[in-house]
């Protein structure tokens, strides 16, 4: 099965530094199957036109292909309606979009508080800080008030009692990641949403960038209000992301970007917005990207997320077992596989993560090193950087064996 999957990804047969490519940086971005690459080139070769604007055949074809992806996306995440889907450039833009619209809506007041977690990616911290920062600052935020942060315990699991103690009538939004991009922790979103709703009137936004690619998501059963994720972390092209928002909330949000395609009527003294979701998508969308994303969704549906999840669990379990046997190696995040996604961050005593990544690269193995855009989390862990291996549907046990062999070579070079 994996053999057949791997054949769909031309890049996997590339050689890097004269070695077979072992791609373990999937949490950063995944590789793309032929079907996605061909969908994009087919669009440009045969159907390219702007959407919703022309009456000519090409424009109709492009529009139909584009609209089709709204339906696929809504179905993929279990949304009630296609009107709840907003396409943007990625998870970062999706969260910024949500924050901007939220800030100017009836859901926010200036005395309000926002809750995030210690394990958040910068893109689920900074947009909220921008609402809370009390002064204009060209060089950064310097006066952020009312940002509350849910603690994690030593296993990298959220302290829900702490969350409960932070919730008040002032809490206006709780922004959490579904799966941590460093610790791999799978947060109990359903339970968190229930707790938030029982103890406050806050909305809940979930950063699902590391979750949607790897497990079946149903936004309705999660109960959250916003859910954001990226195409490029799930076989699709870069430059496409999704913000899902409950219809009854979306209808009460003002737009944040103004221009063509988001209006009903415009005069010099007034304007009327288009219906949702179009009022949130001014300007020409990333049409070819969205169509490529549609092909990625087809590919994932065809393969089956339950199979992908099962395969990845086996890999993560094998990876943790193998890495645990290496002296001097520390793994971060929960060791209980049921609480963990397909991300394994670790450090190796005596070898800086950057050096480890460089040595591995010389053997054709691609991992990520650094703080993975989660600087506050690394501060909490008391380290400046980690190395991170992350998996997807085309990875095999032999990829992990290559990783382990590479780490042992690095130990030899650094004499540790």
């Amino acid at each position: 099965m994996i053999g057949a999957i791997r054949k769909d990804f031309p890049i996997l047969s590339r050689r890097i530094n004269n070695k077979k490519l072992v791609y373990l940086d999937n949490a950063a971005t995944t590789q793309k199957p032929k079907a996605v690459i061909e969908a994009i080139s087919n669009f440009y070769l045969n159907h390219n036109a702007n959407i919703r604007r022309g009456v000519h055949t090409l424009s109709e074809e492009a529009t139909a292909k584009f609209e089709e992806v709204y339906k696929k996306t809504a179905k993929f995440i279990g949304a009630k309606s296609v009107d709840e889907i907003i396409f943007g450039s990625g998870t970062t833009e999706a969260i910024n979009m949500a924050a901007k619209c939220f800030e100017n809506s009836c859901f926010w007041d200036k005395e309000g508080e926002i809750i995030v977690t210690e394990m958040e990616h910068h893109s689920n911290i900074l947009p909220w800080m921008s609402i809370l920062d009390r002064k204009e600052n060209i060089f950064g935020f310097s006066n952020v008030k009312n940002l509350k942060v849910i603690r994690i315990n030593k296993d990298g699991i959220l302290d829900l009692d702490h969350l409960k103690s932070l919730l008040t009538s002032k809490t206006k939004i709780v922004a959490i990641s579904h799966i941590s991009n460093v610790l791999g922790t799978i947060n109990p979103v359903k339970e968190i949403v229930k707790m938030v709703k029982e103890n406050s009137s806050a909305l809940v936004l979930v950063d699902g960038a590391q979750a949607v690619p790897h497990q079946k998501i149903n936004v309705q059963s999660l109960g959250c209000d916003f859910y954001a994720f990226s195409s490029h972390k799930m076989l699709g092209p870069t430059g496409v992301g999704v913000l899902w928002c409950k219809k009854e909330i979306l209808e009460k949000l003002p737009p944040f970007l103004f221009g063509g395609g988001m209006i009903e009527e415009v005069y010099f003294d007034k304007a009327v917005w288009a219906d949702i979701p179009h009022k949130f998508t001014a300007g020409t969308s990333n049409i070819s990207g969205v169509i490529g994303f549609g092909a990625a969704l087809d590919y994932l549906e065809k393969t089956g997320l339950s199979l992908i999840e099962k395969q990845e669990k086996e890999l993560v379990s094998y990876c943790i077992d193998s890495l645990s046997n290496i002296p001097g190696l520390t793994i971060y995040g929960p060791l209980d596989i049921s609480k963990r996604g397909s991300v394994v961050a670790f450090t190796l005593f005596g070898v800086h993560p950057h050096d480890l990544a460089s040595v591995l690269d010389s053997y054709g193995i691609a991992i990520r090193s650094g703080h993975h855009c989660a600087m506050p989390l690394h501060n909490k862990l008391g380290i400046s950087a980690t190395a991170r291996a992350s998996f997807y549907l085309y990875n095999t046990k032999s990829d992990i064996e290559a990783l382990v062999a590479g780490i042992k070579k690095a130990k030899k070079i650094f004499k540790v």
Partner: protein
Amino acid sequence: MYKEEILEHFKNPRNKGVIEKPSVRVSVKNALCGDAITLTLAIRGDKIEDIKFSGIGCALVTASASLLTEHLKGKSVKILNDINDTFVLKLLGGEITPARIGCALLPLKALKQIKK
């Protein structure tokens, strides 16, 4: 990239530490990886009497700081104007991959702040 000399300077860095009451103190951070380095210098007249570095860094940052401080110690401050990227890469002796050049040049980035 990980030649014996670089590894040796990483394991046994020269001039590691902080000068008490330095004439100059400069710090830089690499936002990509969180590495941070601080240089302290004791300058008498126009001579760099002492120079030390501290902070966290990978093998390239550490070796680069170690080699650079070793090179600068005891020299005239005028030498600070002559030190550039090419010189540092040469000092490290060879092939640094493009993604790691930022690491190799981090200590120089700190030094350049002194010139200002």
